[in-house]
């Protein structure tokens, strides 16, 4: 039916999945890629490496709480961290559009350097291309990252099991709503800021404390918390039960969502992780998260159930129940 790539295919939801499974993976089929985790895990001799890549095309390039450069550093670091890896280095690919102001470019470079320094990582290789005006959108950034995995076993959806507690490291939807409200045309003044931040230090602390009790981690970026949970439930095969009321949502995000008709559970996060831990470690994990700046508003939001239907059941705040589904289509503001 559809003949062309549409924005839906980039939303991180069902259309993105279809694009991958139907048009890409059949051609690149291999056991490492087929895992489709945040990072690939590669063994070289005795050493286990995490390797990942991500491209950043956000509009606007500067937004409250960050910019595209900061996102490019933190996003890739977080993909490494979700496999329990300590980041080693990053690469940087830049596609610049003719007409981008040098002053803006310099601001981004400075920001890139600050983000890398804050995370304690270096950009060790890179590439720059310029495309004619109108063939890009100011700046696109690709970063790839390599990390060393010290933990064993490696956190993975394969290790999710009934009884596991599901935690989220903080409020959800902050990044998504900030981008949507800073786009031109939407004249809504909100106090939301992007949550972009590196999570590898938080993850290292968790692994040190909880060790193999930490079963799986994911950063709920595109498609938001709901899409991440449905994907993991589908892959692991277990049912998850989530308490809506336990999900931390910043009040300004909640009100902006009410006004615009968005569901915060489907909005992107850039500095949050969902963590599955054995129940005996749940409280310790929560306290540890809350004791760190990355996880001050962390919460236990649900548990893995013994039923094997691969569904996510949401217990609503008023006591009802419904299923959570993955994102379908780019989130659109409502019409009436």
């Amino acid at each position, binding site marked *: 039916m559809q003949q062309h790539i549409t924005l839906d295919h980039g939303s991180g939801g*069902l259309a993105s999945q279809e694009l991958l499974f139907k048009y890409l993976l059949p051609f690149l089929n291999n056991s490492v890629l087929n895992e489709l985790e945040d990072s690939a895990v590669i063994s070289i001799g005795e050493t286990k490496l995490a390797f990942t890549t991500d491209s950043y095309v956000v509009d606007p390039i500067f937004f409250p709480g960050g910019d595209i450069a900061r996102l490019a550093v933190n996003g890739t670091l977080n993909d490494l961290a979700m496999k329990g890896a300590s980041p080693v280095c990053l690469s940087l690919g830049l596609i610049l559009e003719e007409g981008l102001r040098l002053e803006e470019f310099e601001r981004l470079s400075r920001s890139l350097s600050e983000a890398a320094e804050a995370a304690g990582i270096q950009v060790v290789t890179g590439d720059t291309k310029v495309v004619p005006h109108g063939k890009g959108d100011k700046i696109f950034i690709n970063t790839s990252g390599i990390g060393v995995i010290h933990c064993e076993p490696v956190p993975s959806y394969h290790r999710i099991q009934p009884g596991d507690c599901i935690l989220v490291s903080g409020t959800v939807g902050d990044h998504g709503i900030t981008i949507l409200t800073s786009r031109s045309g939407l004249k809504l003044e909100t106090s939301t800021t992007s949550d972009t931040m590196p999570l590898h230090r938080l993850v290292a602390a968790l692994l040190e404390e909880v060790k193999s009790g930490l079963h799986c981690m994911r950063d709920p970026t595109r498609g938001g918390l709901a899409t991440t949970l449905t994907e993991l439930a589908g892959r692991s095969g277990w049912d998850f039960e989530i308490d809506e009321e336990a999900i931390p949502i910043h009040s300004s995000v909640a009100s902006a969502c009410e006004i615009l008709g968005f569901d915060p559970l489907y909005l992107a996060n850039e500095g949050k992780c969902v963590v599955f831990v054995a129940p005996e470690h749940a409280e310790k994990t929560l306290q540890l998260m809350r004791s760190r700046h990355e996880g001050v508003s962390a919460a236990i939001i649900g548990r893995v159930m013994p039923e094997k239907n691969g569904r996510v059941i949401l217990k609503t705040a008023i006591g*009802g*129940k419904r299923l959570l589904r993955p994102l379908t289509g780019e989130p*659109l503001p409502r019409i009436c």
Partner: protein
Amino acid sequence: MNVFGSFEANYRRPALVSFLRERLISLFDANKGQEVFCMEVCGTHTVSIFRHGIRSLLPPGLHLISGPGCPVCVTSQRDIDAFIWLSRQDCILTTFGDLMRVPGTQGSLQEARATGARVLTVYSPMDVISVAKEHLNTLVVFLGVGFETTIPGIASMLFEAKRQNLSNLTLYPAMKLMPPALHAIFSDTGCRVQGLICPGHVSAIIGARAYEPIANQYKVPCVITGFEPVDIMQGLCVLAERILNNRPGIHNAYERVVSWDGNQRAMDMMQRVFLPADAEWRGLGILPQSGLALRPEYADFDVRSRISFPETFAQDSSDLKNKCRCGEILKGKASPSACPLFGRACTPSRPFGPCMVSTEGTCAAFFKYGGQETCNNT
């Protein structure tokens, strides 16, 4: 820890919801074996009911039927094909986001945009004024889809365009009025609906009195409620009690927003720019005086007076329509799970009909919130 402002929190208080739930359950216990069919007219209600898991709280005898209150869903195939045809002409289309994925006979606006059509999504009709000012030498068209909630904004846009002599700004009028659709539902033979949860936003404009003819003519109760869980549960209590005790009439349970007479300023603005006209609805056909045309002094703003459209666009008899049961679903005569395409060939990422596209469409809401599994009541 879900941090809502205290205002919303009051209308989401679990204790209040369970109190109202008990009231409903005892009502149905006292009326054993009775079946009650209520229609929530508005798509925003449909979504809220699903989102809060309200269906899972209702007694088995209480059936909710989703109504025609999603403006994208009731837009005729002819108009949608006209939108997509327009996107390929020498003009800039402006539209609310919901229309982007609606499938026409030949692709959607989203696909048209992917292949070069100039289609901009706007958040308010007033944004179109700025688009028109930035492109003074290009025809800018706003796709006018919406109910009484959106129409005053569209009217203000044209009023402002006329005042500023923005002659490149035009409208494709496909707006709809709610009361005629309600008449169509109750006049239909085989109508199961015994009472209405009236659309809260539309009611804020047209006022509670607008339902008087419906309540009187069809002897049904019409309850106006808000969109929060407590509002909806309270509305359902009142509506079910009235249906079971045979007490037709209007009950305004949303007085904090809706008045008896409505918003006079908004209605004046509508009347200043538009006149009632016959309109074609998906699934309901042509309903007399259910749409709007531009008044003669605004006639130049109708894009159809600037561009000559092809004679015919697909009728509602296309292949899609043959399989897609949107029409019956809009009238509350079928639930989405009864449609052979639902969830299989037709999903939000590959929709056949507009009910699956719009976030407030009945099929999209059923699909997104788990469909049959949570709706044991329809």
